């Protein structure tokens, strides 16, 4: 009897430090099917697939390929088993041609027979409907061409099991259609494909079956024919958990930021933020929800003056309410914004990259925001010193001394230092991105309390988060981004988790596409 399953992963567990990225996860892929691996950010999809492709090694569990138990210790082992993965970040050498990239690291004669490689590449292309020019340099390629090249590369190396990690994140709708057509061709040719995604419409459009993960655990799988978007969303977001986060009624909220027609394009010309209109009020916490990469980062950075915007975009800052004078923030850099007296505090996602300098001490990091103050040509060390001392005491930062480099601090303490510094400048707008990511429960509550205190003081707080339970219990209003668009602003007190989930996955706009 022929084996029905190309891949079976049983009871897979993987732990990074304290975090269980995968806990007893179960996955099976039938031969000749397209399986969607669905889940929110941080649900462990990519970790699971990295174990199948040899990047990570599972702590526990078994992997069966074609019914045989196997050990996959390196990407090389995975290739030998016919498993090929296309990562989100392409593994291609820019200055080499497509053919050279495909041939890289393969055994063979002393000289690379470029003609033979080209021939074989064309064969693969004709068979599945790709188009790749073997002699084109990678630096001349568009993102979608690079992705195609990656897929051809895995096929060239004899992959029968293909894993695509969020392949559509970088593609236009037309390119996505083309990719799906190629995927169907490959399936009809007997290849088995896993597509990692968090877009419901794609799950429904392309896959035969879907497996859902949530917070590192296996939730279930079902035939796509029997699934609908609502059922899948419920599996993805799960039930509501009560957290008992304190939330006061906002006191006289006043409009402080007016975001109008905000559009951001990245270096490749892809629209990251699409015509966003949003008001931010003083004295409230505005939550921003969305699948990662849906424009949260661009939104905060555009406000902070770190992101070039498309003309017509506008962010008006009104320190004294909707009728008072306004300051246009678009087109200014952070320094000129600060010099205009706009006290904008920003706790970025990348704490040690953008927020703090890892190799500098606590005092040094305080100085980064202070060094321009004062008249003397020498920097004032007294004030940053006191400030660091105060933050360590008030926020109970665990550190040997204030002269310790911040890289030696634990993640939670680093975040306390960063938030403490930003709050110490008595901001009028406080923006935080994933402020509690990776923090333990106690530190998370410390951060929530700090944000609430700022709200009471009449600061306009923006909280970009990924945990829907926290968003629903901390924020007064929740703006949901989806694919760079503002997909609704919900009331934090009345909205349900499912509601936020639907808005995140663009249920409203995509039903037509998904049904087609």
């Amino acid at each position, binding site marked *: 009897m022929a084996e029905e399953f190309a891949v079976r992963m049983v009871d897979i567990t993987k732990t*990074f430090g304290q975090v269980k990225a995968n806990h007893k996860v179960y996955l099976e892929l039938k031969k000749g099917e397209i399986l969607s691996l669905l889940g929110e950010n941080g649900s462990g999809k990519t970790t699971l697939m990295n174990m199948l492709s040899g*990047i*990570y*090694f599972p702590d526990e569990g078994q992997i069966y390929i074609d019914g045989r138990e196997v050990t996959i210790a390196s*990407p*090389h082992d995975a*290739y030998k088993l016919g498993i090929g993965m296309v990562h989100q970040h392409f*593994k*291609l*050498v*820019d*200055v*080499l041609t497509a053919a*050279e990239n495909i*041939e*890289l*690291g*393969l055994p*063979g*004669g*002393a*000289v*690379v027979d470029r003609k033979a490689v080209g021939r074989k590449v064309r064969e693969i292309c004709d068979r599945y409907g790709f188009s790749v020019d073997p002699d084109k*340099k990678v*630096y001349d390629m568009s993102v979608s061409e690079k992705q195609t090249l990656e897929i051809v590369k895995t096929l060239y190396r004899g992959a029968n099991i293909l894993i695509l990690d969020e392949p559509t994140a970088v593609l236009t709708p037309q390119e996505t259609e083309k990719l799906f057509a190629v995927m169907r061709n490959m399936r009809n040719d007997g290849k088995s494909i896993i597509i990692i995604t968090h877009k419901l419409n794609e799950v429904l459009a392309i896959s035969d079956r879907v497996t859902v993960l949530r917070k590192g655990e296996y939730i279930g799988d079902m035939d796509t024919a029997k699934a609908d978007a609502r059922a899948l969303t419920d599996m993805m977001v799960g039930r509501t958990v009560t957290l008992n986060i304190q939330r006061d009624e906002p006191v006289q909220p006043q409009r402080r930021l007016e975001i109008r027609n905000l559009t951001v394009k990245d270096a490749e010309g892809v629209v990251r933020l699409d015509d966003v209109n949003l008001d931010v009020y003083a004295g409230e916490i505005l939550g921003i929800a969305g699948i990662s990469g849906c424009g949260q980062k661009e939104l905060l950075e555009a406000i902070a003056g770190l992101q070039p915007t498309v003309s017509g975009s506008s962010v008006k800052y009104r320190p004294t309410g909707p009728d008072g004078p306004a300051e246009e923030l678009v087109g200014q850099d952070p320094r000129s914004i600060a010099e205009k007296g706009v006290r904008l505090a920003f706790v970025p996602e990348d704490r040690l990259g953008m927020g703090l300098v890892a190799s500098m001490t606590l005092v040094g990091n305080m100085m980064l925001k202070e060094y321009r103050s004062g008249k003397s040509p020498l920097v004032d060390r007294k004030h940053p010193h006191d400030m660091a001392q105060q933050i360590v005491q008030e926020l109970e930062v665990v550190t040997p001394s204030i002269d310790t480099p911040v890289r030696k601090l634990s993640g939670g303490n680093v975040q306390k230092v960063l938030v403490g510094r930003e709050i110490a400048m008595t901001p009028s707008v406080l923006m935080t991105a994933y402020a509690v990511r990776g923090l333990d429960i106690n530190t998370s509550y410390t951060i929530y309390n700090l944000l609430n205190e700022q709200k009471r003081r009449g600061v306009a707080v923006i909280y970009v988060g990924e945990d829907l339970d926290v968003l629903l219990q901390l924020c007064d209003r929740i703006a949901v981004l989806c694919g760079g668009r503002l997909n609704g602003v919900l009331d934090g007190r009345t909205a349900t988790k499912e509601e936020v989930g639907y808005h995140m996955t663009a249920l409203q706009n995509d039903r037509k596409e998904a049904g087609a």
Partner: protein
Amino acid sequence: MTQLISLLTSAIVFGTVILYGSLGEILTEKSGNLNLGVPGIMYLGGIAGLAAAFFYEMHAAEPVGAVGLVLSFLAAILASMLGGLIYAFLTITLRANQNVTGLTLTIFGAGLANLFGGSLNALAGGVGQISVAVTSRAYRAYIPALAGLGLPGQLLFSFGFMAYLAIVIALIANWFLNRSRVGLNLRAVGEDPATADAAGINVTRYKYLATCVGAGISGLGGLYYAMDYIKGTWSTDGTIEALGWLAVALVIFATWKPARAIWSAYLFGVLYWAYNYIAGLSRASIELFKMLPYVVTIIVLVAVSMRRSREAQPPKSLGLSYFREER
């Protein structure tokens, strides 16, 4: 006309020294290792070759040039590859900073070579100047019949074998990097080691081999200098170091292409010697002329950066150490 011929021949001799230096460095840099120890490695190659020839000539009753040549050639390659191995171990295995390691190697090589060079001079006795006449003659031997063919003979056939070997190595390196499978893998290592690693290429082995073989080739520049350029003697005037830095500059000038390095090296030679053939230069303006190779390198750097040609850029991960992240 004779003046021009003499300028060109001295340019070729000069160019050959730095051509070896930069061919080795190109190979090394293609693996992502920026080895600023080239001058030091050239010192090591020069002194090792010279010492081997000296002891052979001292102990052999009737020294044969060919034997001295083979011995000194092997000694030079071995010593400079050892220099490369030190650099490779420090930067690849211990992941030390490449710039610091390279500069240290230069200081180390210069110091060691001059220490031994001085001792050899003392050992040689007499006027206090070592000379390996027999071996040096073998290095400088050419075919008189061909060299006697008038102008073209003088220009093309009047050099020792190492001048031609340099061109052969350059052409082989060119073929190796652009055509061969191993060369392709090597370029991938220097551009993007993570990608090369994922493709199943042993990054560490490639880096080690490229660095050591590259150092071996660079060291031949020092050997050629000692045996041919200054005719089998030693001088502690620091010329090798100056030439070593020119070799590093030549890598940039040739935009990491071995074939391009050939004519660029000779051009550097012409620029360097030009002052000798221009009448009425003062002492100060001679020094200005000697600057020319460096000035054109700077101009090329500026031009390359402004054109932003993707083909003329250094290997992308040049100067960075590679280690697999958590596995």
